[in-house]
């Protein structure tokens, strides 16, 4: 009883394995993977743009909830997407590994026996002269692998086709390993720093940071970066950016001698497998806030986020040390213009004629409630707006509870810091994949057989090209004419 169920289970397992590793299943999985990738390009993805996802939730709460249950906002890390590619790779391994072993064995084996009936093969011809010795010499000259039997030769060429094919598929596995290593041992974070500030590579310096599942926080490289200068250049007519250049002083490790370096959009800074990228930039207005007595309650650069191509930027200034607390919803306009439809806006991304527009609020900033707050937004639920004001450079405005001075501005940059120890494997995998692909698609694999005719002089010649690759006809014609020439 037990043995039969065991047998049953075994044969079921082997049946399943055969099904999974069959070419047809692999093909279906491959197409399925393509289709499964589509929703991720239609719906916003949390991994790329969490803000868009929350916007989607706000505008279509019902649909969003339903879609979220199907993981439509996390397609590429969803179980159903993962299961497709994991099955595909199991199928791939199950298909490729046995073939690799077979191929390695085949490298030493001789070509297959000459078939009995050559007339069924391609380009069959009979000639009344020639000899097996001469044919063998021709095959050797043309670097065929041959098998000489008593009355026939079986020759084969294009062994590298299968080699390339296997290299290609094994490389795909290497790429997957690279992706896996990167996501398990990698790290990725963003930090916005004002020009003039120093960034020390510890987790608390980051605005956002995420680690791979097996990466601990202790392994961050101990470098520091001080942003000393940032230059953005724009096309005069269109305001389209043409170059960003960030100059930094780097100390690695922190405290050692600083070296000046330049980061550009396409040339990150490298520390081993960690890279520092220049991702975005904007303006931080410099403000001073005083209370009624004229005492400074806040002074410094406040990071504002750009809203359009001309860097009209918005942000919030929070002053908790005043009684009542004061907050500002601000808008920094680098090159000022105003019209009735849009209100104040910027006409050029460089600072030519700056303004700081503020709406001034008093009340409770809500910082003590314990709920995390965005530093770019003011929670006005317990506040009252007292005034709107447009400030020119160096202008001070008195708003009753105190004063605000627009002192100037400084650019900020968004540094993205990424550690991906797996990408070298992915790169190697990609290179080998292409080489393997070229080898397998451009190597013609073919066989040619030569047989002594029964009962009369001469030879019978025929061949077979895998995947009906062109050129075999010419090769056989060359062999035939060689036999004819020798016979003369």
């Amino acid at each position, binding site marked *: 009883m037990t043995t039969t169920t065991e047998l049953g289970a075994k044969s079921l397992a082997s049946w399943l394995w055969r099904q999974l590793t069959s*070419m*047809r299943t*692999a*093909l279906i999985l*491959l*197409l399925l*993977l*393509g289709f499964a*990738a*589509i929703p*991720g*390009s239609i719906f*916003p*993805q949390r*991994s*790329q*743009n969490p803000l*868009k996802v929350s916007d989607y939730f706000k505008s279509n709460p019902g649909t969003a909830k339903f879609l979220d249950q199907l993981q439509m906002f996390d*397609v*590429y890390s969803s179980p159903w997407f993962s299961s497709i590619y994991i099955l595909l790779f199991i199928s791939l391994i199950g298909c490729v590994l046995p073939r690799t072993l077979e191929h390695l064995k085949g490298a030493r084996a001789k070509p297959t026996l000459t078939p009995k009936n050559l007339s069924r093969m391609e380009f069959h011809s009979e000639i009344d002269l020639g000899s097996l010795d001469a044919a063998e010499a021709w095959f050797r000259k043309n670097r065929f692998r041959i098998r000489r039997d008593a009355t026939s030769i079986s020759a084969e060429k294009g062994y590298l086709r299968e080699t390339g094919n296997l290299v290609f598929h094994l490389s795909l596995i290497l790429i997957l390993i690279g*992706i896996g290593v990167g996501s398990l041992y990698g790290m*990725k974070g963003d930090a916005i720093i004002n020009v003039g500030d120093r960034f020390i590579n510890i987790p608390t310096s980051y605005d956002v940071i995420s680690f791979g599942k097996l990466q601990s926080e202790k392994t961050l490289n101990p470098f520091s970066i001080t942003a000393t200068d940032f230059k953005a250049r724009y*096309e005069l007519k*269109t305001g*389209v*950016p*043409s*170059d*960003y250049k960030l100059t930094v002083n780097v100390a690695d490790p922190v405290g050692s001698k600083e070296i000046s370096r330049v980061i*550009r*959009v*396409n*040339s*990150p800074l490298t520390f081993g497998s960690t*890279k520092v*990228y220049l*991702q975005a930039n904007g303006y931080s207005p410099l403000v001073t806030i005083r209370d009624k007595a004229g005492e400074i309650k806040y002074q410094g650069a406040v990071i504002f986020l750009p809203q359009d191509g001309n860097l009209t930027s918005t942000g919030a200034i929070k002053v908790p040390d005043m009684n009542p607390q004061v907050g500002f919803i601000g808008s920094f306009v680098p090159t000022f213009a105003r019209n009735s439809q849009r209100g104040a806006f910027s006409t050029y991304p460089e600072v030519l004629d700056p303004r700081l527009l503020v709406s001034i609020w008093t009340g409770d900033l809500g910082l003590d409630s314990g709920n995390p707050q965005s530093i770019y937004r003011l929670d006005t639920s317990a506040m009252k707006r007292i005034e709107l004001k447009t400030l020119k450079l160096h202008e001070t405005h008195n708003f009753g509870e105190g004063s605000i001075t627009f002192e100037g501005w400084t650019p900020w940059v968004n540094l*993205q810091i*990424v550690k*991906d120890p797996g*990408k070298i494997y*992915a*790169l190697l995998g*990609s290179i080998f*994949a*292409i080489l393997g*692909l*070229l080898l397998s*698609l451009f190597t013609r694999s073919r066989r040619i057989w030569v047989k002594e005719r029964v009962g009369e002089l001469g030879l019978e010649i025929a061949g077979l090209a895998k*995947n*009906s690759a062109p050129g075999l006809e010419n090769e056989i014609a060359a062999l035939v004419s060689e036999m004819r020439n020798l016979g003369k």
Partner: protein
Amino acid sequence: MTSTNYAYLSNYAIYSAMVLFTIAFIAHAVEVAFSVRNVDEKTKFDFSRTKRSGNLGTVMMVLAFAFLLAGVILRGISAHRVPWGNMYEFSITGALAFTGAYIFALWKYKIRWLGLPVAIAVLLTLGTAITILYRPSAPLVPALKSTWLAIHVSAAIISGGVFLLANCIAATYLILDRYESKGGRPTWALKLPALDVLDQLTYRLVAFVFPLWTFAVIAGAIWAESAWGRYWGWDPKETWAFITWVAYAAYLHARVTIGWRGRKAAWLCLFAGSTFLFNYVYINIWGTGRHTYSGL
């Protein structure tokens, strides 16, 4: 000469190329429409009488290619960079690659009959480019300033040209297949190659260009790593490039390993090609990802 002058010259070259493509189009149309004359009853046909029209078509096609090439190069000179900074430039280069793929295949495989669909497709592409997609010549945004622009975009554009050519042939296959299953080809199609020749030609083109497309995707990944901090991020354009890759990989497997031929293979090829077109048109213009360089 100033940049603006070069830009004007480029536009003139493109307009001239369009005129030449139109002549090629007419010549090929004449060739197809009047090529077959029934000499007697149903058995004998005379295929030779529009040969000269066909020759004219080919000559015009080659000339148009030369003018288009000049247009693309002048555009690059006017902007002091490779001419692949916005969708207008992608389109004129794509048309160039497509024409180039046709002329190459013409030289290797005798497929002059494809001249008519090729001329139509190129005229449509250039027409859209010059009317809707046109943007004045301008320098690149910082993210595009990289050697990888030339490598990645040229590989992608050439792949696209060949994919479209393969699609034209696969579509021809399906049309002729329909005629044949309904009792036979109409007279105008008698001169076109046999079905299995078309099938084989489609496969050749795909197999030839699939490694190049793979390279385009990988070069893009390497560039993305240096510009955006990750080599793969499922950006919509990346996603669709992957889908195209998967679809053509499926086509190659279906044909080589499982042995699909004919109708099924042609449909799969058309599907794969349409994912490429979708990526080019839809994602470039209405997409939201980081690859929005259409300039629209």
